[in-house]
């Protein structure tokens, strides 16, 4: 054991005293630190700004740490009903999306691993074709409209509630499990569904975790579908709300209100001499933090997912 921990791991020297710190190590560390800084700094700056005193924030005094300390921006965002409505909508879309995605993935992937499935070959073609061809933006829009889903929350849930990529990922994973498992179960008299629920699902935690994190992030961060399929503000997801507040103002797409914020919010801002920038940053923090808190927990599954996906066929 001891010897093992002293040994080199790949090209990295072990912890033995003979392996001294070299200029090479310094360079590696320096590059890593710079990369970490470039990656973290924008988000860090946004957090610092959102927590700074309004006057300091407006005068450009914030560079790294918050200057003064104030949670006013968060208090004002808390008043914005439209923001929280959109936030809640997104939570609902994520939950619905995850449930449907898991079902749709496993319900196709599991039968695909069974050797006695009729038409398995054709089914594989049926899945492969949409991976290379698609109708594109406008035909998809017309189909959604023809189904009567325009301006319905379902237009934000159903078109993205399956992923052929995930099905193939999941099938590859299930096929890598030993086949004796299900045979033993069938001898014991288990039905197909029992074998799936009792034997395969408990072993599939890694792939379920991968699909879940992809779906959570995908649905939470999506705005494009909502921008073409809906106009009703009551059902808009939080990213679309954010786009209207963050982006449209700069490009002059929205002239109806100056900041995209409601009247109560504008009044509260004026009272605090607060700039719209700080409020927008507070919203960014509220919307982004849940994801940034969650993803490190799934990290060990990322490699698994990426490797499964890179296997051909």
């Amino acid at each position, binding site marked *: 054991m001891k010897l093992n921990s002293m040994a080199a791991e*790949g090209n990295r020297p072990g912890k033995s005293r003979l392996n001294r710190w070299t200029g090479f190590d310094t360079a590696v560390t320096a590059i*890593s630190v710079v990369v970490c800084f470039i990656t973290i700094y924008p988000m860090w700056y946004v957090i610092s700004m959102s927590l700074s005193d309004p006057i300091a924030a407006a005068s450009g005094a914030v560079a790294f740490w918050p200057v003064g300390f104030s949670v006013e921006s968060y208090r004002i965002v808390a008043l914005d009903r439209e923001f929280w409505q959109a936030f809640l909508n997104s939570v609902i879309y994520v939950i619905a999306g995850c449930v449907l995605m898991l079902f749709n993935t496993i319900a196709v992937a599991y039968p695909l691993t069974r050797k006695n499935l009729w038409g398995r070959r054709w089914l594989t073609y049926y899945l492969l074709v*949409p991976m290379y061809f698609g109708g*594109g*933006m406008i*035909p998809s829009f017309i189909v959604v409209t023809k189904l009567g889903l325009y301006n319905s929350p379902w237009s934000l849930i159903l078109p993205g509630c399956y992923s052929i990529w995930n099905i193939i990922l999941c099938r590859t994973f299930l096929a890598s499990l030993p086949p004796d498992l299900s045979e033993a179960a069938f001898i014991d008299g288990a039905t197909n569904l029992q074998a799936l629920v009792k034997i395969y699902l408990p072993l599939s935690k890694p792939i379920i975790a991968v699909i879940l994190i992809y779906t959570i992030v995908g649905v939470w961060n999506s705005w*494009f579908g909502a921008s073409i399929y809906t106009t009703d503000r009551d059902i808009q997801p939080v990213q679309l709300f954010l786009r209207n507040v963050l982006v449209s103002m700069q490009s002059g797409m929205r002239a109806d209100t100056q900041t995209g914020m409601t009247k109560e919010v504008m009044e509260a801002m004026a009272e605090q001499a607060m700039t719209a*920038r700080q409020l927008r940053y507070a919203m960014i923090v509220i919307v982004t933090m849940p994801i940034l808190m969650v993803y490190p927990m799934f990290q060990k599954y990322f490699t698994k997912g*990426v490797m499964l996906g890179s296997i051909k066929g």
Partner: protein
Amino acid sequence: MKKRRKKLLHRDLKDNVEYYLLMALPLAFIFIFSYLPMFGLVIGFQNYSVGRPFFGEGVEWVGLRHFEKFVSSYYFPRILKNTIVLNLMGLFMGFWVPIVFALVVNEIRNGKFRKFTQTVSYMPNFISTVVVAGMFLSFIASDGIITQFLELLGIQAKSLNANKEFFPWFYTLLGVWKNFGWSSILYLSTLSSIDPSLYESASVDGATRLKKIWFITLPSLLPLIMIQLIFAIGGMLSSNTDMILLLYNPSVYSTADVIGTYVYRESLMGGAYSPGTAAGLLMSILSFILVFGANWVSRKKTDFSIW
């Protein structure tokens, strides 16, 4: 024997009914949202208006007229040029970053710092394009931190977001920032599967770490790098429509407009469904040819291919 076979067939039948019941809903979703739009492509050859069917009565066929119109329009060369320029810049500025980053991370001695660097590098991938674009636009606004910083250096930086020369740089750098960490996962996991005895015997021969990277690590990555390069070249005509839609504005259309943004703006918002479908289809066909071409050349020349 016969009885057994009959029994097996009976079991197959029962199994298959169960399986197809289980698959019914997802397969229906795939049909509706992936296949129906493909049939919808026929409107590129029609004068479609809202509420009409794709086939049958009342359909006005116009052949390739929309295609011809698009190709001879002033937009087609601009879109083609922008798409290729943005992708080439992405390739030159972005392709090598995850590889070099993976090599660097792989050399970090301290396990905790190595894991921390990796975790941090994945972060931008989890931040939405809306937030990335929104943060960036506010940073380059007249009172934004980037503008302030440039002014501190004595560089006049006025309305950066309206500067059409800067747009491709902004788009490319944001893309690199957002994706380098996530793209490095594939390289890193390949690195961890390299046989350690290779490094050990090289050490015995007195190779430095830099030499080992050059002679062991990089050659082990080469097949993967080639495959990624084929993908990148095949994807030369596709672009991140989401990000451009969020970042651009009318003053930078001349360097920012790509097929997705063009179709979104001119057709979807403007209601010209048939011309937009034709334009989108044409670019998809060109893109498809490119993917196949890249793959074919690679298979002939290097033995690496996707199919």
